[in-house]
């Protein structure tokens, strides 16, 4: 076991997989010599050489298209898109090609590509360095979509993603690369070394995709969330005094409906939290699923707490960010209202 932050845990997952599987190749903008703008690939090119860890031209569409070609030719590409906000030039390659290759060839061809990309706000990145576009991709059939909330999960889920025969979009919430963040930007930064999930095994281990985790057991309500917001939700539970069960969804596609709905059926109340915008966001899918599966157990309408339906504004980051106060208010509201 070692203490790792999320960057180190991701680096370790890539290191393990590059070492175990000669088919794994890692590439993206500034990923090779420099080691990535967030340092996630630091040292890997030196260790595995320039044919395994590559810099690429600045062309996200090209990066994903090349990954598909490599995948079809027997490699297991791990492509980095430098910011999730930069992924859209690759949209056609991801949606029309990567996601559907297996289906349209009746299983004859596939490309086991993992796309890693940092997402989320809270770093004064404005609208082009803060987005959480996971819901855009969960809507696409044939993509697995993952977002870890801590170093331990990040490594285990990334290894599973690389080992998956299906394409995986792996979102890395950059606000928690260096430490958990409870939603209060005025507090001093907390490192992962003081968090139990900063304990990360050195070698290979896999966390199965499609498995949610109960982060905090509770009886009064269920709080469904993922990524950075797991930590904000914990702060909100403390703030509200509501004994909420917090579930880290972790894997958005496939979704662990059993764990989610067992909890909601137990508590009878559900608050859904994500940083992404609300309208047609992933919370809408969670809400619909909970409604379908748990309707007769619900004591109150399901509540959603999300980013507002605007681009991420540079000056109003903390008015935009769905912080503990808003989540706590929603928790109190679902406790008050009776179905």
């Amino acid at each position: 076991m070692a203490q790792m932050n999320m960057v180190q845990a991701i680096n370790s997952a890539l290191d393990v997989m590059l070492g175990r599987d000669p088919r794994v190749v890692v590439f993206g903008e500034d990923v090779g010599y420099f080691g990535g703008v967030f340092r996630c690939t630091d040292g890997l090119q030196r260790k595995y050489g320039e044919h395994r860890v590559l810099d690429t031209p600045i062309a996200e569409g090209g990066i994903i298209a090349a990954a598909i070609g490599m995948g079809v030719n027997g490699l297991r590409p791990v492509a980095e898109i430098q910011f999730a906000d930069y992924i859209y030039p690759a949209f056609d390659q991801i949606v029309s090609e990567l996601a559907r290759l297996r289906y349209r060839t009746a299983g004859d061809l596939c490309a086991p590509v993992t796309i890693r990309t940092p997402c989320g706000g809270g770093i004064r990145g404005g609208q082009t360095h803060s987005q959480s576009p996971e819901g855009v991709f969960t809507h696409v059939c044939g993509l697995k979509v993952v977002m870890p909330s801590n170093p331990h999960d990040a490594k285990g889920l990334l290894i599973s993603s690389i080992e998956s025969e299906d394409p995986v979009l792996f979102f890395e919430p950059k606000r928690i690369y260096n430490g958990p963040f409870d939603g209060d930007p005025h507090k001093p930064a907390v490192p992962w070394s003081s968090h139990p999930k900063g304990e990360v095994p050195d070698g290979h281990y896999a966390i199965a995709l499609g498995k949610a985790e109960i982060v905090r057991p509770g009886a009064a309500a269920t709080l469904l969330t993922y990524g950075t917001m797991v930590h904000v939700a914990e702060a909100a539970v403390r703030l509200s005094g509501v004994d909420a069960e917090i579930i880290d969804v972790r894997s958005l596609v496939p979704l662990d409906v059993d764990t989610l709905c067992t909890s909601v059926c137990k508590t009878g109340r559900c608050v859904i939290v994500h940083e992404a915008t609300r309208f047609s966001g992933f919370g809408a899918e969670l809400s619909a699923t909970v409604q379908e599966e748990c309707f007769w157990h619900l004591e109150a309408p399901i509540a959603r707490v999300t980013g507002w339906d605007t681009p991420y504004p540079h000056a109003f980051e903390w008015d935009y960010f769905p912080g503990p106060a808003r989540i706590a208010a929603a928790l109190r509201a679902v406790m008050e209202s009776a179905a």
Partner: protein
Amino acid sequence: MTQSRLHIPHPPARPGETPDFSYLNIPPAGSVARPDTLAPALQVEALGTGMVRVLDEQGHAVGPWNPHLEAEELQVALRHMVLTRRFDERMQRMQRQGRISFYMKSTGEEAVAVAQAMALRPGDMLFPSYRTQGLFVVRGKSLVDLMCQCLSNTRDMCRGRQMPIMYHWAEGNIFSISGNLATQFPQAVGWAMAAAIKGEDHLAATWIGEGASAEADFHHALTFAAVYQAPVILNVVNNQWAISTFQGFAGGEQRTFAQRGPGYGIPGVRVDGNDFLAVHAVTRWAAERARAGGGPTLIEHVTYRAAAHSTSDDPSRYRPKEEWQSWPLGDPVARLKAHLIALGEWSEERHAALEKELEAHVAACWKEAVTYGTLTEGPTLDPLSMFEDVFQEMPAHLERQREQLRRLLHEPDAAGPRSDVAEG
């Protein structure tokens, strides 16, 4: 038996190694012929491999591309370039002090934006990249306005919605800078197509870095420009570095960026980007061509990114620290200054006075800008304004969200246990 091999481009020097720019083909100043502005694209292919240069080593303007500008205009140009550099330096310092969140300098590349903005007409539309602040300086946007944008304060043209340096200036005919690369390149072509459709003689000009020329949008721009012969000037600012990857990773090892033009049927001109006179001259040539119905021109400006990519970047990790000192095309400010001195129209004393004057001007602008607020000190923008301009008219769901935020900000107690207000 032979087998295919992957070629991995390597920059000539990494940290600790001796800078080496021998890969650059730099012909002597004045050696490239100046074709007629309406010469067919295929007859001017040599412009893509040579390098248009006007200023020689002694600071004299030589050869057929000499634009013969008045000394007064050159002095204005020097002023714009020095002002751009002083502005950049001040803003970098302010970022280091935590007054703004981010900044990108254009140090070493000032001649490109300044010469081109001066060579074009005010009615021409500019689609900038994030390292062409000289365009705003030449067009007369006040530094206070630019600073207020970087500060996201109450006078911010973007109303707090954009990261620093993402300026725009609709009245000044400068489009909005995007944080996403290369998007402006084909947009400029569309603007130029509209000018032609409307029968106007304005043209569009746009800029990207050589790294961003790898994006598909670059190729969309060249295809559309060529198909419709749109009146547009497409500028690739080859400053050798795209964050940590050198120009070889954008395809610069095989051909010059200017040479891509002829592949599409567009003239490609390679120019010494640190030579104010040369940049001015090729821009005039391209503008005359566009206005006379000759269609688009691709210009590659060979220059060097002297600063870090941004305040988030540390170039000492991937290139020699002193590489700029070895850059064979020098410093654009120093070269124009030397030329003016050689003409007898400038002196070290006047230059020192200019630097001092502009430093004071920038300081005064900053002092004024912060009176409109900073990220951390008031006055501040109203957060409720974030819901405006998503649509022309605010739809009901945004009105509801604005009301939720209003209550949260102004009636924190009311944000408590009421299902109709809490995220309803």
